[in-house]
């Protein structure tokens, strides 16, 4: 980033305290993902049935679950997996969806038609059910969750990347590059791709939240990460049955953590968009 961009970023953060807050949260989440497992007070997998379903206390900040595991430790440790799944799926769809959109917008013609049709088909599905079906059909492993989450985001990335590419193409500097003797792919990857990168990064940040929700939703209905791995969606599902019986903490803390993470990414995405493209803030 150039100085002006940095300056602009600093301005956005100071001007918009919400984005600053989101950034701080984001850093906290990243720290938790990196160092969490080595910092938590308890083994997130160790049961202690004698101390099951203990309310939050000085000993167990977030209480304990059905078999006495420390919820705070589990919630913190889960950060890595949840963010990891979301980041991986977003990276995946960024690579494939972004590239498909680039190619689609750059070459047009039948390539554009085919990619457009694929997008249309995916869009015609109820997306969460499609994700469920993919995971159910391929098996509930982490890579499949990543894949399913990526697939349902594909049309979005294609659309954004395509629109940006078309705009760049029409702006004429692609022609200039062509005249200067660059080959198509070279122009595409060397000239267009870097130019649409900022918008795509914003897109990634915005879809991170949705990816987290999606993965947790899959886990919630039993089509996601496997027990006893700490994961927010599973933990909410495990705790769901305890809400009515008064052990609200089992579901509340992972649910709140999930919400906060998604919230943070959504706010951050908004903020990033301000930085990258102030005109387009919505």
């Amino acid at each position, binding site marked *: 980033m150039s100085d002006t961009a940095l300056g602009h970023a600093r301005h956005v953060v100071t001007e*918009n*305290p*919400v984005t600053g807050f989101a950034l701080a949260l984001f850093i906290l989440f990243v720290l938790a993902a990196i160092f969490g497992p080595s910092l938590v007070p308890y083994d997130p997998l160790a049961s202690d049935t004698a101390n099951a379903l203990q309310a939050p206390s000085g000993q167990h900040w977030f209480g304990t679950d059905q078999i006495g595991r420390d919820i705070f430790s589990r919630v913190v440790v889960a950060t890595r997996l949840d963010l990891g799944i979301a980041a991986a799926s977003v990276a995946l769809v960024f690579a494939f969806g972004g590239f498909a959109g680039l190619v689609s917008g750059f070459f047009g013609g039948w390539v554009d038609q085919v990619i457009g*049709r694929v997008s*249309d*088909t995916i*869009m*015609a*599905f*109820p*997306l*969460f*059910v*499609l994700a*469920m*079906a*993919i995971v*159910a*059909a*391929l*098996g509930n492993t982490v890579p499949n969750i990543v894949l399913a989450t990526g697939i349902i985001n594909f049309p979005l990335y294609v659309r954004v990347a395509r629109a940006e590419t078309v705009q760049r193409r029409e702006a004429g500097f692609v022609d200039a590059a062509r005249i200067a003797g660059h080959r198509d792919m070279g122009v595409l990857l060397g000239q267009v791709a870097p130019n649409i990168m900022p918008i795509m990064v914003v897109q990634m940040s915005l879809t991170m*939240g949705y990816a987290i*929700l999606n993965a*947790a*939703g899959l886990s*919630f*209905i*039993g089509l996601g990460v496997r027990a006893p791995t700490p994961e927010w*969606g599973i933990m*909410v*599902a495990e705790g*769901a049955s305890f*809400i*009515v019986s008064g052990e*609200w903490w089992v*579901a509340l803390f992972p*649910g709140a953590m*999930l*919400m*906060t993470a*998604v*919230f943070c990414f*959504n*706010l951050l995405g*908004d903020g990033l968009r301000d930085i990258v493209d102030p005109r*387009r*803030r*919505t």
Partner: protein
Amino acid sequence: MRGLLLRLAGSLPALVAVIIVTFVLTRVLPGDTATYFAGPTASAESIAQIRAELGLDRPLPEQFWSYVQALVHGDLGMSLTTGQPVLTDILARLPASAELTLCGLLIGMAIAIPLGIIAAVRQGSLADHACRVIVTAGVSLPVFFTGLLLVYVFYFLLGWSPAPLGRLDAFASPPPAVTGFYLIDAALIGDWETWRGAAAQLILPAVTLGLFALAPIARITRASMLAVLGAEFIRTARASGLSSRTLILTYALRNALLPVVTTLGMVFSFLLGANVLVEKVFAWPGIGSYAVEALIASDGAPVQGFVLTMAILYILLNLAIDLVNRALDPRARHT
């Protein structure tokens, strides 16, 4: 009209692709439907017998062909979980989902559009930031979690809302089916007690969904209002001294609604698919929960039927959006 028909034809390939993809997906679902339905003490023979009965022993292309043939005749197959023809099930459940989703959408709109307008009119103000935080919080809520929480607080703790027993209290009888929307049907015969009962049942799940719909609607309203408020014709209107009410509602909002309507359509289709978990929590007899249960049970026909219904709805919805846009925008009528 030609344009609409063309659009309709244009969506056919996607529909065909949806049918194929769904078919393949449901066939590779793990688990052996025949085994599941043969019952707990089934012998190998009885499993084989059921497999043959369900046509699961034939090669895939052949199964697909018979599926398509049946589809042409409006036969979506049988649900093994409910034991009913899928079409019957879906027709029975679609109004429930549609009513819920529509109410969710209306609640979302009722909150989000004014929020979006305020945020745009007072861009950069505290209200704008608050709006952003509220709608972002709304979209950050996992519906499965909010649903549970709302039931706990408003039913179990406070007792304000009725028991989450589906569309009506157990002892009430549904109004005669005209539209399948209880609120409308009850209003048609003037049965306000039933209407209130249905509304009371509807409110929590609809709010749960509505929260989720806030963000996309409020964001697009704000963005589109901002774009319109910056437009030259608004400057003209201001220069003409029109009241801020006329200015914002008649001039800005009506123009800003065009992209909002498009988004509403997307949000509606998204909610219709995404309310599966809400329906589960509130025992709502809709098609979302139906599809999820079927998916978990490896019961292919309902999943196929559901996806197909959704795809058709999606296409119809886009058409409806076109029509609404035409009604709103004279320019669209000439293209």
